[in-house]
């Protein structure tokens, strides 16, 4: 492991890869600061360009920078203009913006940056330590175990992501989209409506750009004038130095947020947003002055910012070790691996050791770059936020999206697909359907079907193979428990509230904190 990591650093420390890592970090921060694109859409847009260069190591080093940079950039706008760049930074606005209003924006930005660095580094250390033992376990998995594991991942996406019924629809929609195209065993066309471009299935990149970039642009057009007014009112930053009391208050939340974030990141569908909300709740619970939360308490910035970066590191564990994405961005990264013809899963560490360890090394370096570069340069990001006209930003995103998607297969069909997904994404988001499960379903669907059918082919059509091993049984049992969890929770809640519904119910609900 140590030797592999050292080799990873050795590969990384060439001018090209260091520059690509720097470019990724800057690009990530940029998309985090500016509205219109998130990391999933940005990586999707970069894919055609990186495919053209034909260097997967360079591409993934850059994607790693984008991955972490976006989260850091998102916190800047949350703190300074009360507008989160990423959903995972929503909770940061509560105390971050209050600190800005009190003239303590510098301290808020500093605690967010240092917390992000600590969490990102700890998460990468955990990934490094866990990689080898987990790969050993994963190599023992057969198709039945993989099928059960993927089912369990999907049930977590549905139950723990909030809005379980809508998440179930989004996920099933993604799985249904994943069935479009030629059947991999027989070549039989399914749901292609005679369209030859659909024989290879729905292009993940076109779908991701449509759902995340185009739908965001549509919302952007609908609220552009309001956004323009917000962007012009950026409060002064003040000193970036943290006082002794700030350091003391931040240390605990940084560590707790890092651990919480990493665990949440490993679980599919939970991710950075929930991690940041849970971290905020934990910090408020542990605080001696919970009433100061929401009024500019530095712990309310330190914890969630560490948590959302910790989650980004956690996302890498199932992606690299099992080949299972746990978020929209990692689903796009999985599509990138597939696009380069790289076999994902535990064999990735054996067959593409150089790529994986260089990527892990780039996460260490990228985190350090974010801390060293972004804290002193925060003023530049603020000026950029003021300078870039939002209307040009949004039309620019559309132009780059169109040309990027066109370049995937040199035809306009995928551009129409992107447009259709953009409109669908807008309508679904407007009705609070989560979008990430669609991408997860689209990417995981064909893999699930393949494992399912391979298991049955091995057993000669005997379905009991799916529950033959203890591991598969346990995973399927966990899937059933997780699937029933929301119903059980709802039942318990309704029973608890039923006897006291008339006198207490309304008041209790009304006074309940959202976090």
């Amino acid at each position, binding site marked *: 492991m140590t030797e592999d990591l050292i080799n990873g650093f050795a590969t990384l420390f060439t001018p090209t890869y260091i520059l690509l890592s720097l470019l990724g970090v800057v690009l990530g921060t940029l998309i985090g600061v500016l509205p219109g694109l998130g990391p999933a859409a940005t990586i999707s847009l970069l894919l055609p360009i990186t495919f053209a260069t034909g260097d997967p190591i360079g591409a993934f080093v850059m994607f790693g920078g984008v991955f972490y940079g976006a989260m850091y950039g998102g916190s800047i706008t949350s703190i300074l203009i009360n507008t989160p760049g990423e959903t995972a930074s929503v909770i940061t606005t509560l105390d971050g913006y209050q600190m800005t209003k009190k003239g303590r924006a510098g301290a808020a930005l500093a605690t967010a940056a240092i917390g992000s660095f600590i969490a990102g580094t700890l998460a990468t250390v955990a990934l490094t330590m866990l990689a080898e033992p987990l790969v050993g376990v994963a190599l023992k998995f057969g198709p039945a175990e993989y099928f059960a594991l993927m089912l369990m991942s999907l049930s977590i996406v549905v139950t723990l992501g909030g809005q379980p019924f809508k998440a179930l629809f989004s996920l099933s929609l993604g799985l249904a989209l994943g069935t479009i195209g030629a059947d991999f065993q027989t070549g039989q066309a399914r749901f292609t409506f005679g369209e030859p471009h659909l024989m290879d299935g729905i292009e993940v990149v076109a779908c991701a750009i449509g759902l995340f970039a185009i739908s965001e642009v*549509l919302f952007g057009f609908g609220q552009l004038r309001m956004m323009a007014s917000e962007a012009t009112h950026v409060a002064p930053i003040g000193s970036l130095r943290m006082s002794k009391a700030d350091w003391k208050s931040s240390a605990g939340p940084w560590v707790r947020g890092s651990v919480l974030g990493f665990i949440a990141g490993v679980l599919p569908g939970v991710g950075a947003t929930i991690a940041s909300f849970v971290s905020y709740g934990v910090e408020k619970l542990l605080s001696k002055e919970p009433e100061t939360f929401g009024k500019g308490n530095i712990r309310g910035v330190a914890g969630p910012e560490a948590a959302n970066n910790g989650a980004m590191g956690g996302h890498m564990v199932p992606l690299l070790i099992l080949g299972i994405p746990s978020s929209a961005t990692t689903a796009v990264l999985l599509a990138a691996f597939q696009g380069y013809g790289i076999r994902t899963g535990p064999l990735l560490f054996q067959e593409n050791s150089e790529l994986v360890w260089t990527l892990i090394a780039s996460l260490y370096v990228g985190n350090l770059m974010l801390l060293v570069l972004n804290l002193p340069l925060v003023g530049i990001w603020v000026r950029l936020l003021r300078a870039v006209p939002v209307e040009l930003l949004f039309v620019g995103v559309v132009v780059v999206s169109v040309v990027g998607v066109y370049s995937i297969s040199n035809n306009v069909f995928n551009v129409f697909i992107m447009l259709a997904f953009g409109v669908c994404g807008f309508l679904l988001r407007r009705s609070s359907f989560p979008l990430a499960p669609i991408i997860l379903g689209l990417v995981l669907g064909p893999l699930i079907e393949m494992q399912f059918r391979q298991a049955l082919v091995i057993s000669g059509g005997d379905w009991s193979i799916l529950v033959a091993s203890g591991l598969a049984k346990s995973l399927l049992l966990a899937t059933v428990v997780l699937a029933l969890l929301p119903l059980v929770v709802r039942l318990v809640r309704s029973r608890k509230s039923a006897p006291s519904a008339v006198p207490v119910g309304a008041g209790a609900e009304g006074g309940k904190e959202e976090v």
Partner: protein
Amino acid sequence: MTHDQLVGDGPEVVEPEPNSLPASDGRESLAGPVSFWLMALGVVLLSIGYLWQVLTVPEPPRTLQVPVGAYPTLVAGFLIGGAVTSSVVLVREARRWRCGEAPESTRGENQVTSPRDLAVGGTGMIGFIVLMPSLGYVFCAAAFVICVATYFAPKKVVRNVVVGVVLALSTYALFDYLGVRLPQGIVPLPLHEILPY
């Protein structure tokens, strides 16, 4: 809309319209909840349509241990389950909205403060994509940027024209260099034939 808030550097700034509309507000109060009703109907119809398609998938002549339609049938079951349950949730939200309580999903970053701006921007984008194969990438991209940006910032026509033309040409040149031949249309630019790359 506050017209006196017109700013020279960018779009005309407006205050957000209230999201929770009173139940007695005629057509507008109906528009939001109706969209949720339509969405509920749409997701159910989509799932039924998928099941119908699954049932029409032809099986190959040779016998397989797992039929081609087996996995899609399972997915169709989940899709219908998700569609029905989420439709119930949507209908409940629509009812509450009619009583003046707008759903969380229509607030904050999912808020549409100006449907007209959305319609103009969206139409421009669709026009760009639909016309691109016949009129060409460079022309359509430049026209889209110039028209939409000028709609939002009418005082910055020159800036919008410059940005539109530069953006269209630079992206065209970059992707031409990478070997991607974007639609030529009415402004043919065979850069790969002229430039030595």
